[in-house]
């Protein structure tokens, strides 16, 4: 079976005041139909840039795909025309964003905003699209969809707005849904509901989900495979259980030990909460021939500072870009 999405040696560059920085540096991964895959990492590690790169929505004039390919169903998205890309966006690949409060247009009803995408891609008429919008609101579990469909975004809560965003994204039953930190701005209880909804609907429609998050709990619950990103590069990749049980990269290990535990007292089950000291290097550092995690790593030696570590493969499709991957 060929992969639904195959990203190869992707390099995305941002033009900043200090020059050109590779915010995504030589990224390769594959994704199968119906699979849920998670991207984790701190802010500024290139998770969202990867998503925007796939969507063809990199910031105009500032960001561009410098090299590499993004093969979707055999079609290279880095080479297709703008018109073809617009046909794919919202139809075959769709995306939901971090900020449900501001991601919907305040001057149109939620029904119109859902119906619009159906008219655009499915060729539905006004009436049929409106009816489908009601059905979709029902599917994302908004009560009284028939009366809520004519509501404006400001009449809804943050959780409801994110549900509307999900309805828009899944309206055309896309092959891939990219969810960029979909719950960061929401209450904890609402977060769980949104994740449940995403998982259930993803299964129903057979949509593959790319979940971008820094919530390790969500990753463990939602995803089958995960990619850990650091400073624009892939640090580690593998099946979620395997990576969480035995991380092969010091950064992954650090991220996992940052997850707070509910138990009140320290015990075997609940080790002391640690942090990954330091911060993600600035864009100026990106692209250097070195391990960019070196400044924060406790296993660091001269080799790490002078050469970029290659990817080391482990059994069970796990891989880690660390000079000491075997020892971690």
């Amino acid at each position: 079976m060929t992969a639904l999405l195959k990203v190869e040696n992707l390099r995305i560059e941002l033009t900043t005041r200090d020059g050109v920085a590779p915010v995504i540096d030589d990224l390769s991964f594959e994704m199968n139909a119906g699979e849920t895959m998670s991207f984790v990492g701190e802010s500024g590690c290139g998770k969202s840039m990867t998503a925007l790169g796939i969507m063809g929505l990199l910031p105009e004039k500032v960001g561009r795909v410098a090299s590499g390919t993004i093969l979707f169903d055999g079609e290279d998205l880095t080479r297709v025309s703008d018109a073809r890309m617009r046909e794919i966006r919202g139809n075959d690949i769709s995306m939901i964003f971090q900020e449900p409060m501001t991601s919907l247009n305040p001057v149109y009803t939620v029904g119109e905003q859902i119906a619009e995408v159906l008219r655009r891609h499915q060729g539905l008429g006004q009436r049929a699209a409106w009816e489908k919008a009601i059905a979709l609101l029902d599917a994302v579990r908004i009560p009284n969809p028939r009366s809520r469909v004519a509501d404006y975004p400001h009449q809804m809560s943050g959780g409801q707005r994110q549900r509307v965003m999900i309805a828009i994204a899944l309206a055309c039953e896309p092959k891939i849904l990219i969810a960029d930190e979909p719950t960061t701005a929401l209450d904890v209880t609402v977060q769980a509901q949104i994740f449940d909804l995403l998982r259930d609907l993803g299964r129903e429609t057979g949509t593959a989900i790319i979940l971008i998050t820094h919530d390790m709990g969500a990753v463990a619950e939602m995803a089958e495979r995960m990619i850990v990103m650091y400073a624009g590069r892939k640090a580690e990749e593998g099946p979620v259980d395997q990576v969480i049980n035995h991380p092969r990269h010091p950064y992954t290990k650090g991220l996992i030990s940052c997850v707070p535990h509910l138990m009140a007292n320290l015990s075997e089950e609940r080790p002391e909460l640690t942090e990954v000291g330091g911060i993600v290097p600035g864009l100026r550092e990106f692209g250097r021939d070195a391990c960019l995690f070196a400044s924060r790593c406790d296993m660091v030696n001269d080799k790490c500072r002078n050469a970029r570590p290659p990817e080391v493969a482990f059994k069970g499709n796990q891989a880690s870009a660390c000079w000491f991957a075997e020892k971690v």
Partner: protein
Amino acid sequence: MMNFITPLLQRTLYAVLLLIAVLVLNFSMMHLAPGDVADTISQSMGGADAETMDQIRRDYGLDQPFFIQLAKYVGNVLTFDLGYSFFYNQPVTTLIAEKLPATLLLVITSQLLALVVGVLLGVYSARNPNGIASHFVTFFALFGYAAPVFWTGILLLIAFSLKIPLFPVAGMSDVTISGGFFAKALDIARHMVLPVITLSSIFLALYSRLCRASMMEVLGSDYIRTAKAKGLSEREIVMKHALKNSLSPVVTLAGLQFSAVISGAVLVETVFSWPGLGTLALQSILARDTPTILGILFFSALVVIVGNLLTDLVLRLIDPRLRGKT
């Protein structure tokens, strides 16, 4: 629907109260100024002695206390009686009714032109912030805002009426033109071109500048990114999703500028001898024709207040978040 209408009724009530306040203020200020109707009448008679003046004042109730005169005036105005102009020998209401359409035609056309062209220029330059059109808008905005209206008007007259005689020099219509409605309308349109361009130039500059700024802000917002992620075309994104959101500040400003348009119209009408309220205002001030001045002030206030009400209505139509709020 209820939460759409109730605040509007409330607004209308406020507007009526405001109008009465304007009436009181106008009347009081005119009362403070030296000279009264008796002076106007005696002037037109070629002078009068003190006894005749007293007689005139008694006849027109000018000897009565200020508050009684004020109350009578407000009462009269509320029954649409604006008094009698002794200078023109006509009721003020008739006088204004004759001149108002010309001014409204000029003012509304200029505002619409300024709005439509301003928004189009603003949208265009927001999409190409470093293009020639964008620099042109910036330059034109500065020029249009800085140049006095009468100066722009005189320059246009010299250029397009004298040097290149494309348009008529003055007036609103050519009496020698006969023919049906269409021919007359065309004639008026020809006369309108220069005054409308003059009057709209300042506002065009303001609106295009503001629209450009608000459009650029809107184009960077999250819901525009959502629209892009839906696969909509550039045109749909700009004309449907961005434009409606970026119009609010422009419409608000247009409403606020309504009074400025009226005062601009006075200048433009004078330059182009446009037979409207502005010309009438100037003449009646020079003639110290108090009832006419008061009438014109009242109508200007009325136009501004109605303009503001309309602005409010349009804003509510554009932005659902304003509905149901007072």
